[in-house]
């Protein structure tokens, strides 16, 4: 009887999910309720978690609950420590979910709600979740080794070097694009600039409290910090209304970009306790709190989606970023569907806490499902806006024109009516002077969130909600920025130590300053170009970031596929092999188009050539002619970087194929490095918390 009930319930979930997905896909009417998105997502997640993830865990990976994990065997009471699965889940989710799943879907909404939503759902359950779960499993069977180390051990030195290079490259591009997002949210916005700046001294205060005033009292300090952050949102309004203070925080994009670089440099050399650690605490609370609030608001309000299912921009002429639906929707939404960066957390960090292998499904697969859900909510928040408003906020001045009148005329001509008055009223409600051309996704997401929060928790507080949302996005963007700069610094010190061992000493000041400066100039360069580029750097930087992130995912999946084949599980290798094939296809296609396309908005080299020609025959306006040489150089650099990324991808994939082929042909390959089976004692003793 119980069995039948079970079958009935799962059949019901399957049918509900199928009709929700069908409803989303077929609907071509005026609007569709966002509850359909939530329903489709939850049903797909439930089914894939219950059946696919469970099958992978038991049949493919064969998780063994009697086997001691690295956390148990190497328990040192600090980083290695068996921990309750929900606590590990919390840590893992806080580590993997950054600003990516919020920004990607917002940008991809230019194709309409449908392509992005389907990719987030199916990309996650078949690709991203599998990658995270398998990587977590493999690392926990190898003493919590990092992805780079596993690539080196299992495939060979080439794989290890490729993984290291990819990680460093992605870090640089990621930080640049995130910096650009923050700059666009703060430029000429005294309120946002004040609030975001205030997060720095607040973090320092919290850091000092935790380290010296009341050592180890993490929660006390955090509560203090959260209260101060909320006050800083209010303080921003005060600054905005005060004529003298207003000017202190009203800046051009370029000034803000330089300040962010200075901040990134300071954060990389200051001790972690002062800035990085406390900022991370605050950003984690903000992230979890705000995402929960957003989920409650969406579920209570069930707002109607105003964006059409598909827009005409699937032909590649989109104003936010150029490129056709295939492959660019899959590049634009990386985090939320499949994100290679997660493999770095799932190897190395999380396995050190895992108390039992059976928890891998919840933490690896489940953690990514939750991130995918965050991406779905971002998609909803972007598509509940009037499409006209959405495009007005997200289109750069270079595409729609710098004057408000031109911009609204152009956007309305696409069939998405919007007026100057409408934009002015909205900007006024949000406490801003203008919302035109605030590219990068953060401001439009903040407008979407503010309208949702406003309707749910008080309409008159719109401006506060908007700046709260901006602060929430900025605080963890800056966390990624300073954590990333620091990681980049460590990696560079590690690389340089091969040439001069002294450079590897992480506390030797000259080395610290030199490597930090190199890393900051690396991303600072791209940020600078992104800010001066009149077409808005997002069009260039976000696809580069997407390609880099998918490349890292391809490396993780290559390692996983290689190990599955070497473990004589060839017949199961498709679980990572198929997502890998898909990633190779989209990354190579996107890279190919970025390199060879004749369309000057898409191809890097054609854009560089076009600009060179125009500069030579003097057809550029003076302002643009002045920066043209820099833009040309940058476009060429971007083209070469893309070529490097895609070559690196092919090198590692072919290396994996080589190892698999040799193994199948019975030749010698690097042996499996799985650590020996030691029985777990936690099962009997139950000292897991």
């Amino acid at each position, binding site marked *: 009887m119980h069995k039948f009930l079970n079958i009935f319930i799962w059949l019901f979930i399957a049918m509900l999910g199928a009709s929700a997905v069908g409803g989303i896909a077929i609907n071509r009417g005026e609007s569709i309720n966002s509850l359909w998105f939530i329903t489709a997502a939850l049903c797909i997640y439930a089914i894939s978690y219950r059946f696919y993830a469970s099958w992978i865990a038991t049949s493919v990976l064969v998780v063994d609950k009697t086997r001691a994990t690295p956390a148990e065997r190497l328990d040192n009471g600090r980083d290695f420590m068996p921990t309750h699965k929900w606590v590990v889940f919390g840590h893992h989710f806080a580590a993997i979910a950054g600003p*990516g799943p919020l920004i990607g879907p917002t940008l991809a909404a230019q194709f309409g709600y449908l392509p992005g939503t389907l990719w987030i759902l199916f990309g996650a359950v078949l690709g991203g979740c599998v990658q995270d779960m398998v990587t977590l499993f493999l690392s926990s069977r190898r003493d919590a080794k990092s992805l780079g180390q596993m690539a080196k051990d299992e495939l060979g030195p080439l794989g290890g070097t490729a993984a290291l290079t990819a990680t460093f490259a992605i870090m640089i591009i990621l930080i640049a694009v995130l910096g650009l997002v923050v700059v666009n949210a703060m430029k000429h916005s005294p309120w946002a600039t004040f609030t975001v700046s205030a997060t720095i001294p607040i973090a320092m205060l919290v850091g000092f409290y935790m*380290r010296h005033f009341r050592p180890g009292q993490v929660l006390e300090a955090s509560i203090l910090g959260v209260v101060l952050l909320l006050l800083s949102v209010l303080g921003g309004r005060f600054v905005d209304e005060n004529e003298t203070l207003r000017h202190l925080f009203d800046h051009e994009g370029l000034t803000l970009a330089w300040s962010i670089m200075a901040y990134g440099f300071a954060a990389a050399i200051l001790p972690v306790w002062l800035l990085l650690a406390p900022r991370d605490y605050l950003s984690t609370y903000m992230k979890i709190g705000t995402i929960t609030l957003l989920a409650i608001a969406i579920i209570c309000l069930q707002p109607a989606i105003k964006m059409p299912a598909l827009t005409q921009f699937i032909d590649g002429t989109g104003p936010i970023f150029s490129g056709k639906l295939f492959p660019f929707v899959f590049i634009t939404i990386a985090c939320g569907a499949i994100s290679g960066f997660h493999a770095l957390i799932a190897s190395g960090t999380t396995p050190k806490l895992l108390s039992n292998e059976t928890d891998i499904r919840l933490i690896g697969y489940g953690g990514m499902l939750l991130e995918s859900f965050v991406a779905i909510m971002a998609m909803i928040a972007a598509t509940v806006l009037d499409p006209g408003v959405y495009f007005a906020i997200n289109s750069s001045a270079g595409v729609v024109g710098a004057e408000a009148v031109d911009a609204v005329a152009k956007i309305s001509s696409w069939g998405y009516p919007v007026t100057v008055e409408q934009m002015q009223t909205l900007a006024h409600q949000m406490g801003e002077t203008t919302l035109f051309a605030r590219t990068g996704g953060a401001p439009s997401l903040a407008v979407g969130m503010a309208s949702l929060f406003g309707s749910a928790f008080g309409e008159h507080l719109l401006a506060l909600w908007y700046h709260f949302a901006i602060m929430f996005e900025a605080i963890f963007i800056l966390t990624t920025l300073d954590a990333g700069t620091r990681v980049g610094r460590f990696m560079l010190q590690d690389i340089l130590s091969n040439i001069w061992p002294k450079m590897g000493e992480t506390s030797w000041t000259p080395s610290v300053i030199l490597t930090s400066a190199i890393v900051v100039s690396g991303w600072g360069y791209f940020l600078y170009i992104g800010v001066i580029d009149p077409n808005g750097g997002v069009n260039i930087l976000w696809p580069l970031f997407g390609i880099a992130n998918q490349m890292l995912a391809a490396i993780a999946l290559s390692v996983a596929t290689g190990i599955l084949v070497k473990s004589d599980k060839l017949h199961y290798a498709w679980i990572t092999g198929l997502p890998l094939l898909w990633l190779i296809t989209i990354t190579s296609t996107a890279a190919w188009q970025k390199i060879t396309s004749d369309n000057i908005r898409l191809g890097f080299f054609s854009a560089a050539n076009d600009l060179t020609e125009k500069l030579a025959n003097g057809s550029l306006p003076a302002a643009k002619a002045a920066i043209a040489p820099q833009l040309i150089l940058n476009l060429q650099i971007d083209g070469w970087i893309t070529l490097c990324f895609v070559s690196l991808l092919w090198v590692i994939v072919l290396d994996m194929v080589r190892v698999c082929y040799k193994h199948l042909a019975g030749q010698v390959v690097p042996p499996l490095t799985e650590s020996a089976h030691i029985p777990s004692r936690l099962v009997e003793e139950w000292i897991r918390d």
Partner: protein
Amino acid sequence: MHSTLNKIWQIIRRLSGDDAYERYLKNYAHYHHQETHQSDAPSHCAGPLSKAAFFKQWQDEKWNGIKRCC
């Protein structure tokens, strides 16, 4: 009700690292006996670290490596 709230409170403390020192002391007591028999770990015999010293080490270790994603 009370025990549920207490449980939630413990989870929050655990997640935030508020109870890290208590866990360290527990772990220290648990493993100290074994470690005293190893000649290469004489420093452990000097007793556990103070809360401030432990927190310093804990924080520095926690922030070494890739800890945040995109």
